């Protein structure tokens, strides 16, 4: 049996109290670091259980238009990796929920992979999602994460065969992130029987908690997922709300989800 990471433990503990957890996502430095902080504060206050902090990258290949633009704007405003670490450190100190980094491999590679993991560890980040780093390319990263007892989180997709799900699960800790459909972030997903079957398949191929993302954006979506997964991930939608109605509107939006 694998050893449970702090992240997995926190998730399991939280699940004891709630039948589904909510993870939200922001792009650090978009539209500014101050706004990032304000949004996280509001989200936590609104009842979010986990936070995914994206360190902006110039080539976010797996992201759809909303997050893509957020990455570009953050960089244009001058966001650096160093600032992202500083802000994340402040957030982990101020708010008592697990924080994860999401970013692309080049950010780790240029920072130095083991230095990146050490820095995560030092500032209280509990896990990382690196969507362009399959386990086959990421041995150094996996080794460093395991050594630091942090959680490397991998992704299941509707295209992933069962044996590969098990391979990904074997290389993951904390939880498994499943994407509800093909495509990039921020597009609509059909919440259907087919999705239920797929989530059951995911569950049967990992003993880790399951998060589901890509297209979750309403209370109904979350209700649909209740009992099928451990964590619902709201990504692009909160950025969309913020862009449309301002930073202050995010809190209200999250409250409608967890109410």
């Amino acid at each position: 049996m694998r050893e449970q990471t702090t992240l997995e433990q926190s998730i399991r503990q939280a699940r004891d109290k709630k039948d589904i957890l909510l993870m939200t996502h922001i792009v650090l430095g978009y539209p500014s670091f101050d706004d990032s902080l304000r949004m996280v504060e509001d989200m936590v206050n609104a009842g979010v259980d986990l936070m995914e902090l994206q360190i902006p990258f110039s080539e976010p290949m797996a992201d759809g238009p909303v997050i893509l633009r957020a990455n570009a704007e953050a960089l244009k405003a001058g966001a650096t990796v160093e600032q992202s670490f500083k802000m994340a450190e402040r957030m982990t100190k101020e708010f008592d929920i697990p924080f994860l980094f999401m970013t692309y491999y080049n950010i780790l590679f240029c920072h130095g992979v083991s230095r990146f993991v050490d820095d995560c560890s030092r500032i209280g980040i509990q896990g990382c999602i690196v969507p362009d780093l399959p386990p086959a390319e990421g041995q150094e990263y996996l080794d460093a994460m395991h050594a630091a007892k942090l959680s490397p989180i991998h992704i299941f997709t509707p295209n992933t065969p069962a044996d590969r799900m098990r391979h990904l699960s074997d290389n993951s800790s904390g939880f498994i992130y499943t994407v509800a459909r093909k495509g990039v972030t921020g597009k609509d997903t059909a919440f259907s029987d087919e999705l239920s079957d797929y989530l059951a398949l995911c569950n049967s191929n990992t003993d880790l908690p399951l998060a589901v993302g890509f297209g979750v954006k309403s209370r109904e979506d979350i209700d649909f997922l209740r009992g099928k997964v451990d964590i619902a991930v709201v990504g692009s939608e909160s950025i969309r709300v913020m862009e449309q109605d301002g930073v202050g509107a995010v809190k209200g939006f999250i409250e409608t989800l967890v109410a």
Partner: protein
Amino acid sequence: MKNSGYYSQFGGAFIPEILVPTFDELESAYLAAREDESFWREYLDLMSTYSCRATPITRLDNLSSQLGGANIFVKREDLNHTGAHKANNVMGQGLLTRRMGKKRVIAETGAGQHGVATATMAAKFGFDCTIYMGAHDVARQRPNVFWMEQMGATVVAVTEGSQTLKDAINEAFRDWVSNMDDTHYVLGTACGPHPFPEMVSWFQSIIGTESRAQMLERNDRLPARVYACVGGGSNAMGIFSGFIDDNDVELVGVEAGGRGRGAGQHAARLAYDDATIGVAQGYKTYFLQDRDGQMQDTHSVSAGLDYVGVSPILSSMHESGRVRFEAASDDDVVNAMQRTVRHEGLIPALESSHAFAQAYREAPGMSAEEDILINMSGRADKDIFTVADAVDDPKWREFIIDKADAYKQEMGDA
């Protein structure tokens, strides 16, 4: 998904999980095609009936004597159907797409050359086709867009990022992750995740195989040096591959020196030392990036060389010293192009003119007993808007202004 496709420390396949099975399928199909002799035969047949392979080698009689030194020969990839070496790659991938039973192709394009080639292939094979092109490039390269649309392709102007080639690649991947079941992504150069660098190089190796035999037949000896421009690296890999085991043949890759050294001024990843190793667009190589790993703006007079990364295979050959890398400046390139047009009646693409510029610089220092070979990867006559601006032709401006006035009048009259 195997951990393969490395060339010393470069290469790999850094891809979103959702594409893993697609890459597995592609790699299998590619390996099976390599095993199957009939595949290459069919490829050669297609290239010799639909394009005009073997493309000839032309001796530059006038410039060889004007410059003194080495005898200059040119491999004429400009004579390919659609006007560049890009045809070799797309036709090969077209055959592979049909083998995989897919019905739709997508591609990125910078200068538009690869987009036109892919749209052409799609028309020929009966595939649906979508081409991603940075919005900046769409605006600059309307003639190519026009032909792609005439071929039935949908051209999507990418308004993200720097609105150029790398952003078009990102967008193409975004399409692929939604439509991998029926769609093949026809990557245009020897970059990207494994097996693309190797596969594209394989299709382009037709250039090198022909060239080696032709040079031997013609001169009874191999060339002393072989020059190719390097954008992503496909035409260079193509011609170099014919001479890779001939250790006496020096291979010279010529990158876009733009306005000179310094961030944002050029696109020389290997000749200058502004680039560092990184991972983006699915592979590991030298990138023009900042310390955080964010890609930087690049500049070149030629859209086709204006790219942040470079073939991982070339990075490894740079490391091993098998290929020497140089950079040619915008000004030298425009001069080399004009000189070639004026004295030989050949119109090298601005991309290809980088190789000409470097060859012209080196030829005078060589002996008359030596031959050099330049890969003329494409012709410039389709890039007239770019070339006319590069040589700053006032009559061209006048023509465009008059033409615009005529259109406005017609539209007013209608």
